[in-house]
């Protein structure tokens, strides 16, 4: 077990390291110049050169990357003399158009993304597993057919169309106030306000996931119910309820863990579409803004690295969880 964990951990760290290199290289060789963009309307070559030096863009690309990489652990200082400023560790760069460290911008945006992801996750796991189990339990009945129809429609509707329709519905119900949407309401100080801010975004985001998880659950439960140990349980005289919850679901839901972990990890990097439609300034929304408004390269690099890191970390968590649940993985 320890050997397996070390190997997985090492490969995850290597992947994270490579991620920073590749993201930095891709964006570094692109024909955009943050120094020029950040210079504004009244621009002259000297100002651009000054900016370039202050942003640390006047050194070769590999050295830029090295400074970026070291900055993640040690923090980073820009410029010299009186114009010095520091972004403390973990520094992901400095966003010139916003005049703040990328880490600060991400820290402001993350609560929105986290709340959106957690709420939607709870919603889709509960509804997906619930509907899937019911459909499998009453297989072939009209309930099952209804659930199957929901799965077909729900999983094939484009997220942004669903998002728009849910947003409009919320607007007609006077449940959404576009002005207060972007202001962070802490769930601790004002749970109702927090809930009102997010509930429709949760529904919009969770809908298609819910359909997919319903299909997975239904399929797994039906497949497991033809296993030998279920027959044995039935032969022992256990109640159907006990067979379903104690024997069937344990086996049927384990594979769902992989999907759940990866989907959740992917969302923590930012749900661009839902955040944009519901005007929630999360990670996805700020990076879209950074691209569309003034191509704020440091912020884009930062959010992309963070989003990739979440995917890698949740991959690791899923693998560890699976090794814990299924002993065969550890040995292989």
């Amino acid at each position: 077990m320890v050997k397996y964990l070390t190997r997985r951990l090492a490969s995850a760290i290597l992947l994270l390291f490579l991620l920073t290199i590749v993201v930095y290289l891709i964006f570094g060789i692109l024909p955009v110049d943050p120094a020029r963009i950040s210079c504004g309307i009244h621009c002259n070559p000297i100002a651009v050169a000054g900016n370039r030096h202050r942003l640390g863009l006047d050194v070769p690309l590999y050295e830029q990357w090295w400074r970026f990489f070291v900055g993640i652990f040690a923090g980073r200082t820009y410029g010299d003399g009186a114009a010095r400023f520091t972004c403390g560790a973990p520094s992901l760069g400095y966003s010139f158009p916003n005049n703040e460290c990328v880490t600060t911008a991400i820290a402001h945006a993350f609560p929105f993304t986290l709340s959106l992801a957690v709420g939607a996750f709870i919603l889709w796991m509960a509804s997906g597993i619930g509907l899937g189990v019911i459909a499998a339990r009453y297989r072939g009945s009209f309930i099952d057919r209804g659930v199957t129809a929901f799965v077909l429609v729900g999983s094939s509707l484009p997220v942004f169309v669903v998002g728009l329709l849910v947003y409009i519905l919320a607007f007609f119900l006077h449940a959404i106030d576009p002005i207060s949407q972007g202001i962070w309401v802490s769930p601790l100080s004002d749970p109702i306000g927090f809930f009102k801010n997010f509930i429709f975004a949760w529904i919009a985001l969770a809908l298609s996931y819910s359909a997919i998880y319903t299909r997975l659950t239904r399929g797994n439960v039906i497949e497991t119910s033809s296993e030998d140990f279920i027959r044995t349980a039935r032969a022992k005289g256990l109640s159907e309820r006990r067979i379903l919850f104690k024997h069937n679901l344990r086996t049927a839901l384990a594979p769902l863990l992989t999907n759940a972990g990866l989907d959740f990890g992917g969302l923590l990097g930012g749900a661009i579409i839902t955040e944009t439609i519901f005007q929630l300034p999360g990670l996805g929304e700020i990076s879209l803004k950074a691209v569309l408004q003034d191509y704020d390269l440091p912020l884009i690099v930062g959010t992309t690295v963070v989003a990739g890191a979440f995917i890698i970390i949740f991959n690791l968590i899923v693998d560890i969880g699976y090794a814990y649940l299924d002993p065969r993985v550890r040995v292989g």
Partner: protein
Amino acid sequence: MSTQTAEVSRLAILQRSPRQIAWHRLKRNKVSMISAYIAIFFLILAFGAPIFTAIFHVNNTNVYPNALSASGMPIGPWGGVSWKHPFGLEPGVGRDLFGLLVYGSRISFSVAIITSISFVVVGLFLGISAGLIGGVLDNVIGRICDFLLAFPTIFMFVALSVPLTLRVEATGIAHNNGARIVVMVLILVVFSWPGFFRVVRSQVLSIREKEFILAARVAGASNIRIIFKEILPNLWPLAIIYLSISLPGYLAAEAVFSFLGVGVQAPGSTWGLVLNDASNFWQRDPAYLGIPAGMVIIVVLTLNLFGDGLRDALDSKSDR
């Protein structure tokens, strides 16, 4: 029924090729056949856009300021739906919505079809190479695969689209929306082949050990012949399934990127762009949002239902 005719019909069933069996199963699935007809209708509409818009004497660039009120809203109910403008008009600029959507669907369909075919071809090529040759090559492709899967696709798209478009324009291959479409297809293909590659590779690994491959080798068949005559025919069902299932996804992806403002830009028109514009007007002109949204939903839904049916028909394991 006498035993003799039963025997005859049994033989008739036995003597069908896998392709005939699949076709028969597909035909029996009413939902997916109806979906297929609807999807084909929209496909014809998209690629015959100049003909169909000419019927109504409209196109995707003409503006009709006379059909708009002083505030820029279409005159008449349902966003100005009339015989002259079957889907109404675009508020503000005043182009015909039918023209915009039909011409727009041409872009959406092109992106989706080119992307799907490209990623299937790339997946097949790399999957067969990795599966057959193995060794270092297999390892390298596998690692690249793992790595690509760690990238947030939508993020990469959003971040890369603008500068990459500049790059493509600088090479002179395409300009403006042409360049944006090239970039869109490129990024989608780069981030979507790993999933398909893995399935192909594992299939090739199992096919490789089958007797008929050994027989072909004994008979002196070359590697090329084995790939094209023995392995590829066994992978076609898989390729068709992936093609049909991913098509609506890419259709929606194109719409999403245009909707977010990183895909095709005005004065071009795609579903995503129209929906983006409509999301600013929905309170005053709900039909302008409803019609394109309905169209996207119908096309994506029918393509998905058809893809599901095709998978059930081709996949012998999914006898439900």
